[in-house]
């Protein structure tokens, strides 16, 4: 499952980031690495970007960026 499929209120465990672009490195630096918990907080009023809570910080990502992050949903 990809992070962009996570709906507001849902929580997941990060599996990893695909790709080796600077963006992917940045995402890993922010904390999108294996084992960390991520929660989807809210969508922007216009639908995009979406805010996620990772390592106690709220980070907003556009869909084109959040679909690089693989997750496993926590039920």
């Amino acid at each position, binding site marked *: 499952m990809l992070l962009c499929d996570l709906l507001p209120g849902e929580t997941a465990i990060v599996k990893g980031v695909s790709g080796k672009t*600077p*963006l992917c*490195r*940045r*995402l*890993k*630096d*922010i*904390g999108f*690495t*294996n*084992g*960390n918990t991520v929660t989807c*907080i*809210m969508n*922007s*009023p*216009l*639908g*995009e*970007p979406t*805010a996620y809570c990772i*390592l*106690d*910080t*709220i*980070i*907003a*990502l*556009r869909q*084109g*960026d959040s679909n690089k992050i693989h997750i496993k949903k926590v039920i």
Partner: protein
Amino acid sequence: MGLTKNSHKSTLLQDATGLKSNHRDITVALAGNPNVGKSTVFNALTGMHQHTGNWSGKTVSTAKGSYIYLGRKIILIDIPGTYSLNANSAEEEVARDFILDGKANVTVVVCDAATLQRNIALLLQINQTNNKTILCINFIDEAKKRGITVNTEKMSKMLGLPVVAVSGKKKLGLNTLSDEIIKMHALILPEQKTTKTVDFSATQINARAKVICDACVTKGENKGFLKDRKLDKILTGKLTAAPTMLLLLAVTFWLTISAANYPSDILANILFSFEKVLYNFLEKIGFHANLCNLLTYGVYRVVAWIVSVMLPPMAIFFPLFSILEDSGYLPRIAFNLDKCFKKCRACGKQSLTMCMGFGCNAAGIIGCRIIDSKRERLIAILTNSLVPCNGRFPLLLGIISMFFVVGEGLDTLKAALILTCFILLSILMTFICSFLLSKTVLKGMPTSFILELPPYRKPQIFKTIIHSVFDRTLFVLGRAVIAAIPAGLIIWLSANIFINGQTLLSICASFLDPFGKILGLDGVILIAFILGLPANEIVLPLIFLAYSGGSLLTDIGDLTIIKNLFLENGWSIITALNVMLFSLFHWPCATSLLTIKKETGSFKWTFVAFLMPTVIGIILCFVTNLIYNLII
């Protein structure tokens, strides 16, 4: 937000590292993630007023300051925030190079107590290359409120380096930090290899950071987090985001207008009653009558006008804006508007730089460094001066209260709404220009966008007001006065030098008049805008001076008298409207242009930045004037 004395004092990295330090001096680098309060700690230690704001990327260049502790001079270097030593943007590169160069004797890694795990990941990276590292946990007071406690002793043991808990805002634990810096400096450690090729594997480091935080940090119920989410529901909610944004904008203007009226009147009365005294004084000490006239009715009058009309709105708008900035609302604006910017193929962070532009365009242009993509940064720089800066607000306010609403009470609300419409127009123009630029000269697709939404923080209202008045407003005003003196001289002289029975001013004005008339303006207004290049604040005073140049008006503190003067010189409602439009859209001020040249390093783009708003202004004024003339 604005340019100040201190932002000029702040040195770039090259200067900061090139300092000749006494061997007893200790050079300390303040590193850390973005928005963990490095600048707040820096200010608390040095007593300087480096700008702080509650959002990532507020500090874009390196600042240096020093203080004396126990007889030792400690030189602090505030470096921009970075998420890791794998730098992704220009300002992160500045940070990384500084940390890796090892020019600092001691590195203090500042962390936010609420987001320790991510912060400690950076600390671990830095500690691999620099052995004299101290961990400074900031916002410790706020953390307590959020139910977070940190076992600093245990953390210190696990990390193998000193850990100090401080509150930069409340000035807690700062002496302990200074003690540790001196102790750490005195420590003799084996020279450690510093290399730029260290591999900072994010996964490993994050895992280690997690182990440490799990062992040392306990979290209770986080009431602050829930409160923030409730606020977010309103400020970024589907139905409420746009209305609250507009409301905040309108309220800010309304407060500015209604609070500025009164001090404006008082200042005008005092300053203009002094005019006569000054004239008599100059006459008494033996100045020639012409010189007395020149100094009094040329120079002094323009300066008095600027101080009385421009100072109060500026002094009120600046702090109001800083309060919004400190609260953490600006990133929410970026969050709300990102989709629009994406549609224009620009970066959502452009909202942040646009907002900074409301304070000062030059500051907004420097702020564009937070945008990573070069193309998107150029778009943000070129469109920045489309929003009116603090220097242009008083002109808009003055004309609105002269020609569109007259009176007080409910009418100030109307004035605020009209001003809000003008601001919305300038924001709309920013979108249109961003779109057109990325369709033509700056072709490309939008890149990634990562924005941190910081926790809401209660702004320090009193401190903000004091700082913005003494630090920013007076500095900006000083710049305006310096620009006004020669401009006032030129206008007065040209209004009083006669060639073939005509004044020089009227010759110049009549030369520009045909062009001005097409735009619904006149030659004098265009001259004022041209002479206003060094500082936009002086445009309206210059128009006024040019009209009143020959005559010796008295009691000009009253707006109705000024209005009558303008009417006598052929102003109509369309002149007023077009002066406002032209002040929104014309060439950026000289400071902005110089900043654009510095940031882009190219004359071509500086020229585009000059031309684009000017062309927009000319087209808009031409069209409105045409429509007006067709109807009436």
